[in-house]
């Protein structure tokens, strides 16, 4: 009873300004989730394997940016490009060393190798950079505020959705209209047949990891500007949330990952907006949504129904 009366109170008392502010917060969080979720979904689409190290790749990218700007004083736009390249390389190296040797091993082994890669990156960061939180460098252009009426919009909140949709568009273009994209789709449809048809699987998979990690780097940069504390454990929670976003949208489906990201981001913000007393259960929201969707649509919102081939 009390619960619902508070809910209605929250709705009726909410001013247009607050509502607009919540929408801005939700969209920026959602597009950030979407950006990182794409990386999960791409790897899964091709390898049918969850890249648990993806969140930690995001974390490493944050440290790269810190070193570029704060330690070496490279202008942020050059650092941005450098971080994308370095992170893409890191992704390729992880694929080469942790996943490729297990190409013909059972799926479980690759999964465990992914968890190992995740732990390795976390502990490596802990060892190299210490557990002390570092501050993500200030980029005034991106972190400054734009005031629209009484709504405060950080410049980055506009940049993030633009980046997400730009990446989405570029990615869809690559997948649907280029030769490598065609190879990716082929590998994703049937790995063995694609190999028989003369597609260089290792190359396709490497490129997938490179693209996924580059997107993680863009996501990490945006994440750092928005939430500027960097720790070795930074990637764990976003990794988990974005994985959920990818599953909600239908893992393996790029558009689905973006939709999942938005559902999660907006949902997390609005559950606090409309049910203030539930603010401590925000993380639970992601998991509850996941359970509900998996219950009614096990393949996710845009997922394709596949029949297990025997």
């Amino acid at each position, binding site marked *: 009873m009390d619960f619902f009366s508070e809910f209605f109170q929250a709705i009726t008392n909410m001013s247009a300004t607050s509502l607009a502010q919540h929408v801005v*917060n939700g969209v920026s*969080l959602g597009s950030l989730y979407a950006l990182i979720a794409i990386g999960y979904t791409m790897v899964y689409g091709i390898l049918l394997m969850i890249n648990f190290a993806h969140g930690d790749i995001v974390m490493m990218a944050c440290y790269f940016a810190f070193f570029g700007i704060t330690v070496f004083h490279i202008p942020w736009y050059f650092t941005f490009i450098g971080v994308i390249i370095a992170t893409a390389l890191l992704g390729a190296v992880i694929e080469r060393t942790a996943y490729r040797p297990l190409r013909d091993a059972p799926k479980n082994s690759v999964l465990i190798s992914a968890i190992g890669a995740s732990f390795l990156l976390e502990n490596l960061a802990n060892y190299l950079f210490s557990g002390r939180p570092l501050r993500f460098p200030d980029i005034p252009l991106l972190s400054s505020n734009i005031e629209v009426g009484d709504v*405060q919009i950080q410049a980055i909140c506009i940049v993030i959705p633009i980046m997400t949709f730009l990446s989405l568009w570029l990615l869809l273009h690559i997948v649907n209209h280029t030769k490598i994209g065609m190879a990716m789709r082929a590998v994703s449809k049937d790995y063995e047949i694609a190999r028989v048809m003369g597609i260089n699987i290792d190359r396709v998979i490497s490129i997938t990891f490179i693209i996924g990690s580059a997107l993680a780097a863009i996501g990490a940069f945006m994440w750092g500007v928005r*939430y500027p504390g960097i720790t070795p454990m930074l990637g764990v929670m976003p990794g988990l949330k974005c994985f959920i976003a990818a599953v909600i949208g239908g893992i393996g489906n790029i558009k689905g990952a973006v939709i999942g990201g938005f559902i999660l981001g907006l949902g997390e913000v609005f559950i606090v*907006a409309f049910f*203030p007393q539930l603010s401590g259960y925000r*993380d639970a929201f992601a998991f509850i949504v996941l359970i509900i969707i998996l219950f009614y649509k096990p393949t996710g919102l845009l997922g394709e129904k596949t029949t297990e081939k025997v």
Partner: protein
Amino acid sequence: MKMKKVLSILLASAVMVSALTGCGSDKKESAADSNTIKLGVFLPLTGDNAAGGELELRGIKLANKLHPEVLGKKVELVVADNKSDKAEAASVAARLIEKDKVVTLLGSYGSSLAMAAGNIVKESKVPAIGTSCTNPQVTANNDYYFRACFIDPFQGTVMANYAYNKGARKVAIVQEVSNDYSVGLAKFFKEAFVKLTGDKDAIIDIANYQTGDKDFTAVLTNLKAKNPDAVFAPGNFTESALLIKQARQLGIEAPFMGGDTWETQEFIDVGGKEVEGAVMSTAFDREKASTEEAQKFLKAYTDEYKSEPSALTAMAYDSYLIAIDAIKRANSTDPQKIRDAIAKTKDLEAVTGKTTLDENGDAIKAAVIKEVKNGKFKYLDFVDVK
């Protein structure tokens, strides 16, 4: 199998009987006339907590040097190392009481070490004064354990007083709901603030977040609409710094208040210019010593160690003062009488401020308020809690 069981029961009861009779006879002897009064000091001098233990031992030794006598007798310190180990803490405390026949125990650094000695202190009826063990469980349900420091949640009361003194009447709380420390501070803050204002709606919002959260924009947007005079947000320094940063970005201008966990360089590193003006409570500040005793302590410390004392050293010094003061008032070296006198400690002029022990045996005293100014923690104010 059965034999073993019987044996173990026998053994256990034998140990218990000997422990009971043992302390019964000890008490009479320890109170016997002699020229020295023995105070037991049990601190972690080796192991993980050795750094803290060492700093506290300095405080106790310094206090002993400045106040070497009570009731015309010399005070002798019996120092024992509890090795940062709970099992060791218990046996060391027992040894000090039974073998060395100390009349009062001082220590320890680390709440778990103090708790390990809790039962021994209680059963042998020899009082103990904790130095910097801040967990409420140390003194709860133990009439023989006291402490020179305040318990963590007490800082909530301190900040409520501060906020009230500064004219705040409507305050919002943002708590890290998965952190005992934060929830405890928030609870004490709420109780004290409601009492001070006499307005049961003085806390206009209590928002929660989880340890490790990065995005606080949703709770902060709600909070902004309620327009609080101030925000009390005790918690981990990283989360708190991000919280304040996002609050400023959303245009919330109300001051942010927190507890002593904020007093770390990382809070300023991560928070940057946005955490300027954030205020927090802490136990002791060397720049502004409030009592005469503190001046004496500071001078003696810098003479002896050629460096600045830490809050831990000051706290340990105070635990000695509390013991000496109680022995003086009890006019006896009987542990039971000393215990009763310690319980009545009131307005004792100690280094970390005038100290009174409450009904739980926890210190109630003035606290220091610090503020972030130009990227440094600066002394701001002093709050006396009535």
